[in-house]
């Protein structure tokens, strides 16, 4: 069986390391990454190799077939997300290893939380069972809340509390949807649901609850209020992880369930409505980002905006013909991955800039381009991808979405992509303008440790490079999906 060991290791290993990091002395907690990162990277690559040689498979935990047991789905989409997670989390972990040295010892609890978060995310990417997804969401969500609270300042606690309330409400809505689906179809397996689901009030209400719950967790406008304080106020590596990966998990579930249930039961209106909300997010988030004075808040609002692009998936994939739908799938995933990489890079380099000038205020970045070019360079590369300018993953994603929108005759989404790009340019260049302004002639800024700059730079470079080699990841991502050909 392909991935016999590597698939369970993807969640069992981080769980074990999470426990282990509780057992060792605080000084040793960070060092476990040198054990965990190579092993997880190896497991991820082994799963990819399995996918490339054998194709998509189903992993039957406990050797019980669904719906009795819980199955894991090892298809292109899941593997793509796993690889993305491994890359981003590894680099954020290396960043945190250096970054947290100067923080109080209570922040060493970052490490167990990180491992649990990782396990939760990998669990979600692999899940095929909708109740299992609920538990996975909770593992990830509570770990994320804990990470936000880690600073233990009043602001951090309030942000964590708000985040927790949103996450709990979202989970319950999701769970209730699962309860209805199980009541109606007697199965929790996505494959089973796809076969059995019919169009009736139960399915519709269940899907509505699931969508609402997941929208809240993904922080789609106008349900985004919890995100900026949580992502903008957390420790830098935490911000990066949350913005890059955690919100993607709930979107991922939404995407999967939409393809399972959506075409059967949803009117096109719902799809368009989700698209409109996405457009609202792009405009509102971009506008708010531009108005921020605090660097990390700007980046956090940028996440609110970028989430909006992902939701163009729904109108572009629903009843639009196979070619447009495939392009929408490709484009959304490209956007998702590019955003994960670029946003992590943006947060990390923003953290470096803040370290350098000792202040989170954008206005204090005056003249920093002269003294900290490397931190700024990563910020710029990541910004290129977020603005959707070539050559970058963000551009390739935008290209595919544009293509899909034109092909399906939904020209109104072009306006969203057009204005969204300009808005993101406005807020990214707001930072640049400040950094290019001539300020003090003497370098008073602190030099961040090299590791911090290098991790941000690697993430930003990958966000650029993935746009140039997009056909390979996109080819893998299609494997095992309805869009996979051959």
């Amino acid at each position, binding site marked *: 069986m392909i991935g016999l060991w590597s698939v369970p290791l993807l969640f069992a290993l981080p769980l074990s390391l999470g426990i282990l990091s509780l057992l060792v002395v605080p000084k040793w907690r960070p060092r476990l990454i040198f054990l965990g990162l190579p092993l997880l990277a190896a497991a991820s690559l082994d799963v990819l190799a399995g996918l490339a040689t054998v194709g998509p498979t189903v992993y039957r935990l406990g050797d019980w077939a669904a719906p009795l047991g819980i199955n894991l789905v090892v298809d292109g989409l899941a593997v793509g997300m796993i690889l993305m997670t491994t890359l981003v989390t590894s680099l954020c972990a290396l960043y945190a290893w250096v970054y947290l040295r100067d923080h109080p010892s209570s922040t060493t609890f970052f490490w167990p939380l990180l491992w649990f978060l990782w396990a939760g995310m990998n669990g979600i990417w692999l899940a095929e069972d909708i109740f299992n997804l609920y538990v996975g969401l909770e593992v990830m969500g509570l770990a994320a809340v804990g990470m936000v609270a880690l600073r233990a300042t009043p602001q951090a606690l309030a942000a964590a509390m708000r985040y927790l309330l949103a996450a709990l409400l979202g989970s319950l809505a999701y769970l209730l949807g699962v309860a209805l689906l199980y009541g109606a179809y007697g199965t929790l397996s996505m494959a089973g649901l796809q076969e059995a689901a019919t169009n009736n009030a139960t399915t519709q209400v269940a899907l509505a609850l699931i969508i609402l719950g997941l929208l809240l967790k993904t922080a789609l406008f106008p349900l985004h209020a919890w995100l900026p304080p949580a992502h903008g106020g957390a420790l830098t590596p935490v911000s990066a992880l949350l913005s890059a990966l955690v919100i993607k998990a709930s979107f991922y579930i939404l995407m999967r369930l939409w393809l399972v249930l959506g075409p059967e039961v949803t009117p096109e209106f719902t799809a368009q409505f989700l698209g409109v909300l996405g457009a609202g997010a792009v405009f509102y988030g971009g506008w708010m980002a531009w108005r921020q004075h605090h660097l990390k808040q700007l980046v956090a609002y940028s996440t609110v905006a970028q989430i909006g692009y992902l939701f163009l998936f729904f109108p572009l994939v629903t009843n639009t013909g196979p070619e447009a739908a495939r392009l929408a799938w490709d484009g959304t995933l490209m956007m998702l991955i590019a955003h994960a990489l670029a946003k992590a890079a943006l947060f990390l380099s923003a953290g470096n800039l803040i370290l350098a000038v000792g202040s989170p205020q954008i206005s204090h970045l005056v003249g920093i381009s002269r003294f900290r070019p490397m931190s700024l360079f990563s910020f710029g590369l990541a910004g290129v991808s977020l*603005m959707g300018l070539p050559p970058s993953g963000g551009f390739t994603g935008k290209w595919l979405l544009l293509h899909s929108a034109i092909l399906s005759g939904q020209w109104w989404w072009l306006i969203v992509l057009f204005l969204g*790009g300009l808005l993101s340019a406005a807020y990214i260049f707001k930072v*640049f303008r400040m950094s290019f302004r001539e300020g003090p002639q003497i370098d008073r800024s602190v030099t961040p440790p090299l590791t911090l700059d290098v991790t941000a730079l690697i993430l930003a470079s990958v966000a650029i490079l993935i746009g140039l*080699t997009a056909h390979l990841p996109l080819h893998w991502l299609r494997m095992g999906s309805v869009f996979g050909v051959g």
Partner: protein
Amino acid sequence: MDWNSLILLGVLATSLVASGVIFLLAESRLVLRTVVNLTAAVLKLVLVGWIVLGVYQAIEYEFRFTIIEGVDFILRADALGIMFVGLSSLLWLFTTIYAIGYLEKAPNRSRFFGFFSLCVASTVGIALAGNLFTFLLFYELLTLSTYPLVVHRGTRESLRAGQVYLYYTLGGGALLLFGVVALHVLIGDTEFVPGGSLAGLDPSLHPMLIIIFLMMVIGLGVKAALFPLHAWLPMAMVAPAPVSALLHAVAVVKAGAFGIARVVYDVFGIEFAQSLGLLMPLAVAASITIIYGSLRALAQTDLKKRLAFSTVSQVSYIVLGISLFGPIGAVGGLMHLLHQGLMKITLFFCAGNYAETLGVHKISELDGVGERMPATSVVFTLGAFGMIGIPPMAGFISKWYLGVGALEAQMNWVLGVLILSSLLNAAYFLPILYRIWFRKRDRLWCEGKVLGRFETQASLLFPTLLTAAFALAAGILAGMPFSPLYWAELIVGREYLQ
């Protein structure tokens, strides 16, 4: 991966790698940076020379790889592209030497030269792009890499100019993107093919094609500074002189004009564009810009601003030539791509010399400067004559071909535009020349710098003289092989209107 495709990558890589290396160098590594800069520039020039010979012998150079299904990244050296590459690599070398002198002891040189090289890499990419996607990729990269150069001084004014520049170019880029994607939806990957690839499409799509053409030309027109999309260009004059020289003579405006040439010739096809009735509006827009730019130039008191408006006007000659339906007009337009580049960079270098040596920025401060800086002033005069179109300067040849081309295309009114524009050119250049040569100096110049043996620093003077020599040669030796005229005829003869 054969030799011929690698050499294309090499041309791109010389400036790209140089840019990366320079970014990493510490501010104080002056010598190493200079060595990297010059080595890369010379190396690129050698490679380009090699390709020029190859293209002349009709050797195919192509490099491609797949980005996403149905979209390839293609570099290809054809006669049109290599002409632009040749221009930019030659001027890169001169401008680099000039900039090293100009920015001596200025701050942020590492950043400056890094982006400068990146800017050249984008220009080369634009020139070598084999399809619209690749073109777009480098077109946007050019926007990004020039922004830091425009705001280089970091003053409020330059930041403001940078912002305006961004709004214009990013907006234009987005329009171009829409056009490109829409074409992609219609016919798939849009490679540049002589004669275009759209003529066979169903007539019901023609209205759609016209909209696409408009979007693309507006998108490109921003960088080509077509009226009314030109406002960013004079504002961008706050940048250091080498940037103005490079932006105005080579990179940005030419990228726009070159893109219009690509779209008209290699995407739509000149005959198909003519049959859709797209050339006439383009010619009108270009003509309006020519006259408008000249009129605005007249009103400027700042030397660089006047040159900037002159650029607005002159670049539209290229667009005008493209939109004249007929081989002679095309030759005139394409040739002007080179001529205007050489002449305008010379003029900007001169303006930079005046500013750097004497602190002179206003035209009114130029009185008697010919006596103090004779070499620069002679060169400036030559450039100005070229711009006006006095024989045997390069500008005259362009205008001649454009005029004949207009008659051939039965657009006699264009002749009127050309004559009026030449008169206006004279009206805004001759007073400057008068001040330089015939007025007595009436003020003190601030001559703070140590200048060496010449009237100004050698690194400022010699690039100026060299570009001037090239501009002069382009006019006088127009009949020789490998002159701009020769090459433009090669392009037209080989690829268009077969």
